[in-house]
């Protein structure tokens, strides 16, 4: 069997997810043994120019140019995997989406935005699936590197890669953590998709929802808990939006 040709692309992001691939350490050799990495900004200097079996993409889309590049990758790649919160949910790049692009430019660049070439075709930041069809997602900020390896294995075996469809609470209880709510810490664990092995709550750091919501979060139940702890929806909305602002944007448009 010929090794699948894999390309790794970085859009607008901190490149921390691609770095997680480097962090695979001993496993990276197995990974490189199983696939043929033909394009990778972080690891290779040459470019192969298309016909990928798998395109792994991190980052969100913030310019027309990037959007165009993304569409081209989609045309030439058999399978597209979005990795990390920015590619998956739009991530923190979407935090300012309640303002227009022009408004943001004027606040950040104080009238000098016109002088910067890269800003000319700036658009509202978007997750990949707002622009192209995405075949698989490895969520998180940063990604759980083991999950990425699982995803690649599934694709190599022709299996569907499935993310857990239950909240972080399940994995947190597995680790025998006490509940942060009992320490009066508001945690987004109950509605956030598991798979991170409860990384943050396990060090007493509340979940901020970087892996996005479970498919069908019980918003009623969330409201009940907030009330129990004396919080309003507005209080928590900002927390929701750290990683899921694009989702709120879509939901508000739907409700308007």
């Amino acid at each position, binding site marked *: 069997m010929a090794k699948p040709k894999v390309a790794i692309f970085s859009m607008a992001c901190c490149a921390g997810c691609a770095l997680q691939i480097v962090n695979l350490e001993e*496993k990276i050799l197995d990974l490189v043994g199983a696939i043929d990495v033909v394009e990778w900004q972080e690891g290779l200097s040459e470019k192969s120019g298309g016909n990928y079996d798998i395109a792994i993409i991190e980052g969100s889309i913030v310019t027309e140019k990037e959007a165009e590049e993304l569409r081209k990758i989609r045309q030439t790649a058999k399978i597209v995997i979005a990795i990390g919160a920015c590619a998956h949910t739009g991530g923190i790049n979407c935090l300012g989406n309640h303002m227009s692009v022009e408004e943001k430019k004027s606040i950040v660049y104080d009238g000098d935005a016109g002088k910067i070439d890269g800003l000319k075709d700036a658009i509202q930041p978007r997750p990949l699936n707002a622009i192209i069809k995405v075949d698989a997602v490895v969520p998180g900020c940063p990604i759980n590197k083991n999950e990425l390896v699982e995803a*690649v294995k599934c694709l190599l075996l022709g299996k569907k890669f499935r993310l857990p*469809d*239950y909240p972080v609470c*399940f994995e947190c209880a597995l680790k025998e953590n*006490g509940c942060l709510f009992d320490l009066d810490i508001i945690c987004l664990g*109950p509605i956030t998709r598991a798979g991170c092995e409860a990384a943050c709550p396990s060090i007493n750091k509340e979940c901020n929802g970087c892996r996005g919501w479970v498919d069908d979060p*019980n918003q009623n139940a969330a409201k009940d808990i907030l009330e129990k702890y004396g919080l309003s929806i507005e209080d928590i909305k900002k927390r929701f939006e750290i990683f899921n602002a694009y989702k709120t944007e879509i939901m508000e448009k739907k409700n308007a």
Partner: protein
Amino acid sequence: MRFVSVNKEKFFELVNLLIKQKKERIVGVVKKDDDYIFNDLENAVELCLDYGKPTLLPPGKKYLLPRKETLLKFQNASSEIVNEAKPITLIGVHPYDLWAIKVMNAVFLSEPIDRNYAEKRKNMFIIGVDYLNPHPNSFCASIGTYEIHDGFDLLLTDIGKKYIITIDSEKGEKFIDKYIEFTKEATAIDLLFLDNAVNKAKEKYKLAMPLKKEELPKFLEDKYDNPLWTELAKKCFSCGKCNLVCPTCVCFNIEDKAELNLQEGVREREWHGCALKEFAEVAMGHNFRGKIEQRLRHRIYRKLSYTVSRYGIYGCVGCGRCINSCKAGIASPVEIIKKLNKE
């Protein structure tokens, strides 16, 4: 049945001796923040044998059905069965958790026998401890799991300066004989203290199942379509913690996991839970318990009715762990039966 007594200091000395011998894993109840967990002991001083709040995860399940267990290793066309069961001693298992192990035995040791479970059970030595400081969410007295007379090797009862040890197995007898210098034969007065301690503890429970447990399967017969299930579902996150922490929830998922070379891999089983949305999803995507109300109803029926008709044993042991862990506050079997009983 044979009883001996042991001074508390002597007992801790004995535990330290067991730890030093390094012949087997010595696991006991220890404190973790505001909770208790079963964990490998480095020193007997870590032991908290008077704990009131049940441990976060139940000991039987944690060590007899590990949350992730390899069943098989495969390489190309050949495979090899894996059945790892190293000797282990558990110290500080409460009666409700011993009852839960009876439920697990009923499930895993009836035909077809689960070989991995059987091997682990065979290699486990259980030192129980009577539950004398019941937690407000425990309701063992009302369903008869506050005490137990079998299903352990040794059972400690705290009567002040010493423990009375009830011996219930050949392994237990041999153990006591081997370390004979640590214990004394129990006196008639010791046994009076033992009965007194257990009976006094029975009166301390704040929570009680409103119906006798024998009445529950019949009672539930016409409650299947009760509107309560939908009402509770509005508050449920489907997080599955009620399953995870339950000592008698023993469902698992099995998956074959290949290595990246696609030549070798392992077959693993992992805990699963009927409260999770994907639990009842089958091939082609159909989910026969796709709605939250179906799932939380199933959990209650499984505990209070299905295990009774299938194995003749109750699936709920009254520990109250589900109540402790449910953020939405809807998991309590007591509250559910109370609400169903009001109508």
